[in-house]
């Protein structure tokens, strides 16, 4: 198998105009790392989402946002004020030769500027435009102000998360934007497949609320089929089959994730873990039980609590790394509750060369990014380059590609178009 560095990307260098802010930037990034030529189109002064932390060395600066770096790597960047007449004309010229446009404005905004799907498809019938918004382009909630916490709540995810004696919670990291953006990349490529087989371009209208609703698994179906609601948030426990199980366990230096009788593979090796516990004088009455044939329905809450108490004492004596390494040896179903540090230090990710270093010449160093999520016999994920500085590729695109003169560029700059 040739080295990944020599393998081509999956996608051709399709031109993508990326008008998104933090709510949609992962979509273009996912396509860029597969080979697309993504050009981020920012307002003069830069995309407002450059002002979202964390920042490089904690220095708040639109050129140093790690959030922005992460979701805009491999893209080029130009500035353009599409609210001006000149800006709109230039954008149309760019759109004429583009393959895709991705945007995350409030529904109706681009239409008002004469840059909606209808306008642009008249200039370029092949164009695929993907719009990423909290609730989709039309409908009663489509104009709602809906940052992540609100969309997560409206999608039903917040309700089922948290502790029973406190309000429901969201993840402490924006997820509805990411879910919608990665799903949007799939919808965009489905539209592309259709176009390339003799179809035409089209508009892909993505809803973050619907994307998040996909992550609920049971909740809508529990209601529809059984009129059941998950009124209780079980915190670190899991309620199913009428009893609750501990899933998150404190250990010596943090937490591990484990469940008694974790389906068949877990049940089969329970005696091995109990063997380790017995050596430390714990779980002596758990020895010799035929866990492999025990069903959930045979376990009473009282039994579960007793066994969980024994297992819990054992976990408290060991670190998450020790417990995980033992689980790997015993083929037991147990995972550490990892922090970002643990993830970075994962031997599995290291063995698969997951982390990549991208140079940031203006910072005088390289930064470590999450890297390839697949290996292929034929193609490779593209490491590429760091996210663009504000207007970094203005000359490349406006002069070399559109043929604007230096004089025209300086006028546009003076008029704050670029």
């Amino acid at each position, binding site marked *: 198998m040739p080295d990944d560095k020599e393998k081509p990307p*999956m996608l051709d260098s399709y031109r993508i105009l990326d008008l998104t802010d933090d709510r949609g930037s992962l979509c273009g990034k996912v396509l860029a790392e597969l080979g697309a030529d993504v050009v981020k189109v920012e307002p003069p002064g830069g995309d407002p989402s450059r002002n979202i932390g964390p920042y490089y060395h904690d220095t708040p600066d639109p050129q140093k946002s790690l959030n922005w770096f992460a979701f805009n790597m491999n893209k080029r960047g130009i500035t353009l004020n599409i609210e001006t007449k000149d800006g709109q004309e230039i954008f149309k010229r760019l759109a004429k030769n583009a393959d895709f446009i991705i945007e995350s404005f409030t529904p109706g905004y681009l239409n008002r500027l004469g840059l909606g799907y209808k306008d642009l498809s008249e200039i370029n019938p092949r164009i695929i435009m993907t719009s990423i918004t909290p609730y989709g382009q039309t409908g009663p909630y489509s104009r709602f102000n809906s940052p992540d916490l609100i969309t997560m709540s409206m999608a039903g995810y917040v309700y089922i998360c948290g502790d029973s004696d406190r309000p429901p919670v969201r993840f402490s990291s924006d997820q509805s934007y990411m879910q919608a953006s990665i799903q949007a990349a*799939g919808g965009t490529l489905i539209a592309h497949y259709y176009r390339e087989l003799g179809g035409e371009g089209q508009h892909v209208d993505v809803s973050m*609320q*619907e994307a998040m609703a996909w992550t*609920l698994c049971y909740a809508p179906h529990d209601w529809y089929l059984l009129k059941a609601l*998950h009124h209780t948030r079980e915190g670190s426990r899991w309620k199913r089959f009428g009893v609750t199980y501990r899933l998150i366990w404190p250990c010596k230096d943090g937490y591990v994730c484990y469940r008694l009788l974790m*389906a068949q593979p877990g049940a089969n090796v329970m005696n091995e873990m109990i063997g380790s516990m017995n050596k430390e004088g714990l779980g002596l009455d758990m020895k010799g039980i035929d866990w492999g044939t025990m069903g959930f329905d045979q376990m009473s809450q009282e039994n579960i609590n007793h066994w969980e108490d024994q297992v819990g004492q054992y976990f408290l004596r060991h670190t998450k790394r020790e417990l995980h390494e033992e689980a790997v040896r015993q083929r037991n179903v147990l995972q550490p509750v990892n*922090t*970002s540090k643990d993830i970075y230090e994962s031997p599995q990710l290291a063995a698969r060369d997951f982390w990549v270093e991208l140079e940031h010449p203006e910072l005088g160093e390289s930064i470590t990014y999450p890297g390839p999520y*697949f290996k292929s016999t034929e193609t490779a994920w593209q490491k590429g380059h760091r996210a663009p500085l504000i207007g970094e590729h203005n000359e490349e695109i406006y002069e070399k590609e559109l043929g604007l003169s230096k004089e025209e560029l300086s006028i546009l700059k003076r008029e704050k178009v670029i």
Partner: protein
Amino acid sequence: MKKRCALEGLKVVDFSWIFTGPMVTKYLGDHGAEVIKIESAVRPDGTRLMTPFAGGEMGLNRSGVYANYNASKYSMNLNLREARGEEVVKKLVKRADIVLETFGPGVMGRLGLDYDNLRQVKPDIIMLSMSMFGQYGPYANQPTFGQLLQATNGFVHLLGWPDRSPALPVAAYTDYIAPWYVLVALMAALDYRRRTGKGQYVDLAMQEASVHLASPVVMDYTVNGRIQNRMGNRNPGAAPHGVYPCKGRERWCAIAVFNDKEWQSLCKVMGNPEWTKSSKFDTLLHRTENIEELDKLIGAWTRSYTPEELMVKLQAVGVAAGVVQTGEDLVDHDPQLRHRRHFVEMEHAEMGKHLTERPPYRLSKTPSEPQRPFPSFGEHTEYVCKEILDMGDEEFAELIGAGVLA
């Protein structure tokens, strides 16, 4: 006239099971691809036996989650451990574009159905294996489930309150990340094949895909050495930013205020009570410093209203607010989801009425929705053999008799 589907003509042989793989092939089917799901009586897809069941009655063709994830597919009951089962599979692969599998590493090889074998039959086949950790590496063979992988990938650590143990995301969150990356990879691999004529084998790791959705958190460590922690509903850039109690049992409203203009609007809706005039709350910075007191005061106000009332009042003046919706709200009440027909009610011969979700996007020219209800176990074995593979009656009967098909 029925509209042409985007993926019409695309052929998929689907060995995937449980949650992650089936969602991908459901999306392919919803866009018109022909998806043949290989199941076996020895080991049916485990989701068939997962609650909730129609009428609360367990059965292979009654699971709500299975029904949702497997609409638009054909189900074939085929014993892969029989040598002649392998032959039938190869006939299907010979006419296919995509093979998807989500068994543990090495399983397809033991069945004689790994990429090297399948490309002998179909040189430009695109085969994708999705697994927890990838096909190789020190942890590749440790058995794991999505419910635990979300801990490995940091999502459990990021959910809950900083003074307590993390909370468990009820549905395995990372199970709902990798599928969308798989869909992207498959569609991109099809583009590569269209341009070059070449297929490929893709080894996709759920762990690796999931890390990307927490990139800023991870990079705060790789760059700044900071380990971010869960913070309840707090957000350093907003105050208030929380979930507040409302009238009714377990009714909650989420409110998020990112700037002083939104704060002024919120105060106005609250009737500008005296406490809002305090210098403790006049700027985002001050509100952030006094967030605990602020949360209590807001919570005291929200208790008198239903979350729906608050959402309507606050959104009308541009303040971000939303109902913390339940399964009931989503399915029965949400006018936006109804407007977009997110949940499609379908009728299955045995299960009866059930819900199927549509992909979260509408394509303006081609359909994006379930083409037919989920298949009963082995419902299409005969159809696939006789209509698609042109198998004669005699051979079909013989394979049934030999236990290869059922």
